[in-house]
């Protein structure tokens, strides 16, 4: 199936005008499959980390939202162990007017503003609520451990 114009255009624009701190590169053999990297927002526990995600555009995109998950281990109340993300625009609040770019921006924002009230990873959310400082420290530690690129 030919790639819909919309996907082509979005990809082109992601390449031409990249969002600061975000990169999304389609696979050569499957243009609906993107390797995504999101830089942890500054003044967040994830600062300095580069988080890898995978993003897949289903056949009925943009009627249906893209499927996206973290590949890099992350300590975040809205991301579960498998990397799945709890974000309304990825679910009920999806609108076909949203795009890859806007979704990735939302995720970046989510990193800056974890929402333990609407958790996906219950244990993480619990520790976040009970002891936010400890949780943030854990998040920082995980970021250091898993997300900071090792010097070559």
């Amino acid at each position, binding site marked *: 199936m030919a790639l*819909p*114009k*919309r996907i082509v*255009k*979005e990809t082109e624009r992601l390449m031409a005008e990249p969002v600061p701190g975000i990169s999304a590169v389609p696979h050569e053999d499957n243009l609906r499959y993107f390797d995504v990297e999101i830089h942890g927002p500054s003044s967040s526990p994830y600062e300095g980390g580069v988080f890898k995600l995978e993003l897949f555009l289903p056949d*009925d995109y*943009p*009627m*249906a939202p893209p499927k996206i998950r973290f590949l890099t281990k992350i300590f975040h109340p809205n991301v579960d162990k498998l990397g799945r993300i709890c974000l309304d625009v990825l679910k009920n*609040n999806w*609108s*076909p*007017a*949203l795009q890859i770019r806007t979704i990735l921006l939302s995720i970046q924002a989510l990193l800056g503003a974890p929402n333990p009230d609407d958790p996906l990873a219950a244990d993480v959310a619990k520790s976040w609520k009970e002891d936010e400082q400890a949780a943030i420290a854990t998040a920082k530690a995980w970021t250091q451990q898993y997300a900071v690129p090792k010097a070559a």
Partner: protein
Amino acid sequence: MNVSGIDEPPSKRRRFFADSSDGHLDEPHTEFPVSKSAQDHDNENLPVFSDAPSSPFPARTQLTLPHPSPGPVPGSDPSPREDGTNQTGFDREMFESFVGTSVPSNIMAVLEEHCGNDMNRAVNMYFDGTWKKLKRKALGSRPPATIAASSARAEQTPASASSSRAQTSGLYTIPESRYIGAFGVEGWTTRSGFNLLKHGDRVRIERQKIQVPKPSFGKPGPRVSAAAAKRVDVIVRFTDLAGREIGRLAKETANWVSALMDQKVCKFEGTCVYAPERLRTNDTVFLQLRCSLLRTAFLSRGFEASDNRAAGRFEEAETSEERDLRLRQVALVRLFQEINLFPTRGNAAAAKSQREGLLHAAEMAENKEAEKTKAQSLDNSAAPSSSEENEEGQELEQDQLDALYKKAQSFDFGTPEAEPADTFAFSLRPYQKQALHWMMAKEKDVKDQDREVSMHPLWEEYAWPTKDHDDKPLPEYPDQPVFYVNPYSGELSLEFPRQEQHCLGGILADEMGLGKTIQMLSLIHTHRSDVALEARRAAKPVSTVNQLPRLPIVHGRDGTIDAPCTTLVIAPMSLLAQWQSEVENASHEGTLRTMVYYGTEKNVDLPTICCEANAANAPDVIITSYGVVLSEFTQIASGNGNRGGTRGIFSVNFFRVIMDEAHHIKNRQSKTARACYEIAARHRWVLTGTPIVNRLEDIFSLVRFLRVEPWNNFSYWRTFITVPFESKDYMRALDVVQTVLEPLVMRRTKDMKTPDGTPLVALPPKTVEIVDIELSKEERDVYDYIFKRAKRAFFANVEAGTVMKAFTSIFAQILRLRQSCCHPLLVRNQEVVAEEEEAGALADAAAGLADDMDLQSLIERFTAATDDGADANVFGAHVLSQIRDEALNECPICAEEPMINQTVTGCWHSACKNCILEYIRHQTDKHELPRCWQCRQVINSRDLFEVVRYDDDPDVPTLSQGPRITLQRIGIGSSSAKVVALINHLRELRRENPTIKSVVFSQFTSFLSLIEPALARANIHFLRLDGTMAQKARAAVLNEFRESKKFTVLLLSLKAGGVGLNLTSAKRVYMMDPWWSFAVEAQAIDRVHRMGQEDEVKIYRFIVKNSVEQRMLKVQDRKKFIATSLGMMSDEEKKLQRIEDIKELLS
């Protein structure tokens, strides 16, 4: 089978046997008494007594009769009966001495006829009185041919039957019989006893006497009744030399042997090969029959195109004469099979299979005959309507059609050219000049010198055997080495049967757009009758003599009056105006007088104005329609059939008649076709781009109109073409058709190339694009509903086995299904539709919305409200103007830029129409409320408005803010997907090219009516032409379309506009719905893409995806389902085929 016959079984070896009296010289059975040889003739060997001593057939050539070398021909010096003496064969004196009284010579003749030289039998017959019964029949039934034979022989001069066919003139050299072969047969005995028959005994082969001959004097073909009686019994007896019946031939053989004997084609002489010593009744004996062809066989007047006209306007049934011929034909073929005689020259491939084919054909003919007779009686009583009636014949598969066309198209580019007369205003292309030359030659019947004399396709050449079955040499006749047989009719001939053609016209079958009309007009200009030329030379408008046209006196046959200057053109009604204008354009001022004979203009007296006396003022061309021809014909037919009594078309014998779009009469049984056959004219021409629409019979009708002998006889055609074709002997049938057509047809196609590689006609390219249409949900619902119902009904019928009965209703449902692809309104109850519309309008009034809103006025409304200070309205006005501006933006959903059919929601957010609809569907499928992608308001699918911009419309002034824009509600009240697609295409086109003209075809005029308002709303100028319009109105429409300088659409119904029209001023074609056969669509397309077209033509075919239409395309590809014959199914098998197709449509 080896044709040379070297390995033939001994029993079938050829024998030398010139005739019986020679035979004994070579006869190995010496115990055979020589003295008996004189008696050993059957009646055929005897000189036949001529009732007319002066032969009606004049001696013609002076060739002498070569005597057979081994001995004198017995009976070579017979005397007429009047001389009272007869030296050979039946010995009258001996007979008289037997009966003891003098016998009148006429009685003697009868006896002789029936007993040959069997004196015993003759005596018996004389005494028991059976001769009386025989007498009259025998005299009456004596075929004239036999008389000719006897007199010819008597005078020792060649005789030539006064037949049109000269074949019989070769008769002089053949002895009264000539050996052609021998074969073994079985017989069974009817008596018992010892030593009745032993090996080597000769037996006589005799026919059963006819029991109930009917006297029939003075009528042509009295033999018929006798033959009818004979047909009932086919018993062939064999008797010993004393005349005692020993037995009969096996029925199988007797069937055809009897026919040959009855019709005096052959004589047979038997020799016993094996018989049991003690014979009992019903024992099998084996005989060898030597067969000799009789002279009379060659005399027989065969199939004298006993023609259609004799049968008048009604379909001819097979006459008994034709039945005789068929019997004879079958018998001959069987005989040749038995004696292993193969043609030395023929047209078909394998002689053996061909014979089987022929036998099969005859069989079929017999069955068919029965059916046909039935059909005919129906036909005649239930006066068939003029339209489609049951058609005979199988449809041609596409590849067969291709093969046929290919053969018919072997156009020789070396054909000479002819220059048109100087009164002709156009210049012709080379290929047109060639056609002119050809047509002139046809009309003047100039024999093409280059053409080799070819053997008549139906004949085969056979060599006379030179050795008999015992390898003894036979007497040779050096000038007579071969004979010819027509295995189709059973005719025999000694003279080379040439293919001749006596038709002063033909078929111009050039593909559409090659200028058939122009070529015909050039012929009208260039070949005029002498009378016309004379009148023209006189040049004075009204000569003194002609000032008062006298009552015409020149009568043709049937009481018609010659119209030596006039060409009659018959064309479909829609083409009359076009013909007239083309005639005028093609002629220099005043060189051709035309007249349209139609409607009120019909009020003229054709015989008076066209007669020779009025030659100086007679119209050169009269143009009329098929309808007029039919109605005048019906008038005459319902009257007394007297042509002269009327003053119309049938009262005149035209110089030339031209039938345009001649496939109109492809059904030979339609009244129109029959009417056209009856038009009297010297030259007859047929114009058609598709000589065969789908069956071989289509051509027959043309050939019949052209009066091409003998093909215009349907029985002939059927026997030689239809039947072989239907019995799957395609090659033969097509070969014959080709031979028929080759001299008659000139056909060139557009893609033909001249020898130097340039195309015949350089037409601009054309592209055909299939536009997939996606039905809206509402349309799909309607479609699915009808589809399910049709499918259920169909398969229920299949299960119940009532498909045939329910055929009409099934077909009606398929029709509705197809209509529902075009527009759901076509299949809905109009009242319900009206109510729905009313209800919708009420709801809108409540919501303050309308189906069609002018955006500008909306903005103004909101702006006006702004003055009151309502923020919401400021926002509203802002949004609305944004809608206008946004149109060029990209769609938020599919990223198309600009949006395709920008559509706004009730919350005034824009996207492509399809994106919105798809989104709504997607959400609904997930059982979620569709919410706006921008503001997340719930979208009401009723409140979707398509933004229609009039930037494509040159008539609408552009406003300062940009082009005029309106909002049109989508869904209820809007048009169908197809109409929308059409309008979008047209508007896109208008944007690119504001003056281009297009044609829109649909087969449903009601659909055209639904397209009209959509065009009007889009402010697209349109015209319409359909079958309901009067001729004048049509001409006006066509003229307006041609002259129009602005963007114009012509709505045309496929039926009314599919043929003939010249619409080259248009450049785009939109086919709204597929027809069963693409040929019909192609024809419609060729109205635009034809000679005179200067630009590329683009054709768009709108096909609804996943629908019956898409499957119809597949059916089109196979070209099996042909709608023209759908109305009436004549035969179950064809119906079944269609059922299969419907099954495919509904699968």
